[in-house]
């Protein structure tokens, strides 16, 4: 391979940032006084002491440092942190790629003039990293793959000053650096690695000396292509990270605003521009955050969560007004800000000539939003059935977060989240909000329970249950072992024995009866078999 051919794209310049301690950075470790190790399957993955090398057994690590704190590795949080770092890196260059193994690849060739030289940019990056207390290894090369490899190895950037006092990548130094790289770093499968080792190759330089055609015969086109991409002889398109769309806008009032009513006008203006923003991008929003500032700080803030996605400013204003009424205003409001993120792609809907089910769903969502905005999230409830004989456990109350009308928004939301991935680029994995995921799982269980219950009901007999259940069984007075409420009750039907946790020591058994008092109220009472006391548990409403 001739060295001229190697750097065909002279302009492009890639910086690999390998965050070596990312697994540790996930935890808020404070000062480094105590030795801490992140453990993966009983082996050290990452630690804040040099002699605790990756791959060390936990027992050995404990022997070295008796006061070692071992923490389980959290890959999900690491991915999140790397994503946040990609956001942070976005301020330096528009070309950010999230690479494998806790590495970011920054395309900095196009920023040369902005920062007046690569050296300046690197200095800025180092300072910013030091401020974030993030340990990072650099790798500078003409191709993303080479930059990645160098970052894994941790090489000083091969920069030199040319005659015009501009810094540039030192071609020879870079070649030397690449040649020194151990062959283990290459992104290849285990078989290839084994074969390379058996060939007696240990560095990239040694591999480089072998003719490509010979390598191709042994390892196939894919590996050859990879090597060529490392050296810049084959195009290597990258998928750039795109930050999530986010709306943020504020208004400043010179005289300040003291009345809530007066705030509605600027709110309307901000909502107008939010809706314009959304409409231009064919998006819907899901949450809004309002912030009211006084002279020094955020005086009040409130968020609005919609039960379905929206881009209609009338509705948003109405909901904002309802929330605003509950916010205490203590001082003059000097500025107002509106934020919104987490957008969803607009689902195409067609207008119906006659009102149909969709209109009803829309209306249901609007009602729920309105009630939630004023009464709070806990005010609305749904009930569901649970599979249990024990009366207290055979139902559950689910706080309503997103779904009320059967199978409408659930499907819409799932659709929206899958679409959202495509908006934000392929790298985003956590697409479904956790509450939604949990809720759908609970829903599935509930519907299964409901189905079983219905099946049971179709059988010949079922014991009647009261429409009203008391929150707590109420102790009834007794006269001659007979329950009174307030006069002696007439037992109509029963007993029906229900027990719970019979395999446990504190098992309870109840004999349920249907009874009527003198005022003809039909109630559901039981006698506790342990204490022989009577309780009122429900009313046949």
């Amino acid at each position, binding site marked *: 391979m001739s060295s001229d051919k190697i750097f065909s794209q002279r302009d492009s310049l890639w910086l690999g940032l390998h965050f070596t301690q990312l697994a540790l950075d996930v935890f808020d470790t404070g000062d480094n006084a105590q030795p801490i190790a992140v453990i993966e399957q009983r082996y050290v993955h990452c630690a804040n002491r040099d002699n605790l090398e990756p791959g060390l057994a936990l027992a050995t690590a404990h022997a070295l440092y008796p006061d070692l704190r071992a923490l389980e590795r959290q890959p999900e949080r690491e991915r999140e942190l790397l994503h946040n770092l990609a956001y942070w890196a976005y301020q330096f260059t528009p070309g950010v790629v999230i690479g494998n193994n806790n590495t970011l690849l920054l395309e900095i060739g196009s920023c040369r003039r902005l920062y007046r030289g690569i050296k300046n940019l690197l200095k800025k990056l180092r300072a910013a990293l030091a401020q974030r207390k993030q340990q990072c290894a650099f790798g500078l090369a003409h191709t993303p793959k080479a930059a990645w490899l160098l970052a894994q190895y941790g090489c000083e950037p091969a920069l030199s000053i040319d005659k015009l006092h501009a810094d540039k990548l030192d071609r020879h130094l870079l070649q030397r650096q690449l040649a020194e790289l151990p062959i283990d770093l290459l992104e290849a499968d285990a078989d290839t690695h084994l074969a390379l080792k058996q060939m007696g190759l240990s560095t990239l330089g040694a591999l480089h000396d072998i003719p490509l055609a010979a390598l191709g015969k042994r390892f196939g086109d894919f590996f050859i292509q990879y090597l060529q991409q490392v050296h810049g002889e084959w195009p290597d398109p990258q998928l750039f990270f795109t930050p999530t769309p986010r709306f943020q806008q504020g208004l400043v009032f010179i005289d300040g605003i003291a009345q809530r009513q007066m705030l509605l006008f600027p709110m309307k203006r901000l909502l107008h521009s939010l809706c314009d923003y959304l409409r231009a991008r064919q998006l819907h929003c899901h949450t809004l955050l309002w912030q009211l500032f006084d002279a020094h700080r955020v005086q009040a803030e409130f968020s609005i969560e919609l039960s379905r996605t929206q881009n209609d400013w009338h509705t948003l204003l109405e909901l904002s007004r309802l929330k605003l009424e509950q916010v205490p205003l203590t001082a003059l409001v000097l500025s107002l800000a509106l934020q919104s993120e987490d957008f969803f792609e607009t689902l195409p809907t067609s207008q119906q000539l006659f009102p149909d*089910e969709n209109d*009803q*769903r829309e*209306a*249901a969502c*609007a*009602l*729920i939003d*309105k*009630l939630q905005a*004023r*009464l*709070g999230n806990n*005010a*609305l*409830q*749904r*009930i*569901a*059935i649970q599979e249990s*004989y024990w009366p207290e456990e055979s*139902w*559950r109350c689910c706080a*309503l977060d997103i779904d*009320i*009308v*059967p199978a409408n928004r659930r499907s819409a939301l799932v659709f929206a989240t899958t679409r959202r991935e495509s908006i934000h680029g392929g790298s985003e994995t956590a697409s479904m909000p956790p509450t939604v995921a949990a809720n759908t799982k609970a829903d599935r269980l509930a519907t299964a329970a*409901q189905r079983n*219950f219905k099946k049971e*009901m179709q059988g*010949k*007999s*079922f*014991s*009647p*249950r*009261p*429409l*009203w*259940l*008391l929150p707590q069984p109420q102790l009834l007075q007794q006269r001659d*072992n007979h329950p009174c409420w307030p006069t002696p009750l007439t*037992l109509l*039907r*029963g*007993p*029906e*024995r229900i*027990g719970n946790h*019979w395999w446990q020591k504190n098992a309870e058994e109840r*004999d349920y009866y249907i009874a009527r008092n003198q*005022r*003809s*109220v*039909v*109630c559901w009472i039981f006698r506790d078999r342990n204490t022989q006391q009577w309780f009122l548990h*429900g*009313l*046949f*409403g």
Partner: protein
Amino acid sequence: MNPSLQQLLQRPDVWRSRDRRLLASDGSGHATGFSALDRHLYGSGWPRGALTELVLAQSGIGELELLTPLLADIGRQQLLQVWINPPFIPYAPALLQNGIALDSLLIVRSEPRHLLWACEQALRSAACGAVLYWPAAQPSYAELRKLQVAAGTQRAVVFLFRDGNAAAHTSPAALRLQLSAQDTQLSIRILKQRNSNSGQHILLPRHQMLQMQLPRVEQTPAITRSIKANIRKFNLHTAPVLFEQSTALLQ
């Protein structure tokens, strides 16, 4: 007849109780599921888009059972039913036994000062098929009027549960029923009915009692004692079906 009187009588909001023509049903109501009751109601059912007041001294006399056919219907139509401030927990297994879809149910609980507002919002929403409202305090006439106006904007069936002494007060509700229990029957007295006669008295048997599969209690102590012995022998923890069979055998 005096022509001006004639003209007055033509107005839709003037009605004469003796006028049998008006009693003819226009089918505008939502069937109650009880033909005995439907026969006496204007529109052959619960009025839509208007308040229905249920005056009762105590819960547990079958007031919900009266509504279960309607509420089951609402669930089938995929409409919402909003229960505002119910006095106890609506028990999910019992609702299912009565064929009420739990998905359609929305329960609102909040501070007393917000309840009226919540009810008004529900009444003005096109999504609601039924609204059940238990006021925390005795609502004033003005508040009732507000609800009545809100109810008129949509076609939901609206029930307002009021305690016993409300019967003496006036109300703008379109239909007012006084409910009480008579042994195993629910007694309904029509206090007021828009466009039609009032004062009728209807007795409905309590449905649930008919469906019961549990054994009837004869002499409680003796039977339970023998059953207890039986159960202990089997060491059953929870087996209603077997239990029933064993009781049947005993009898």
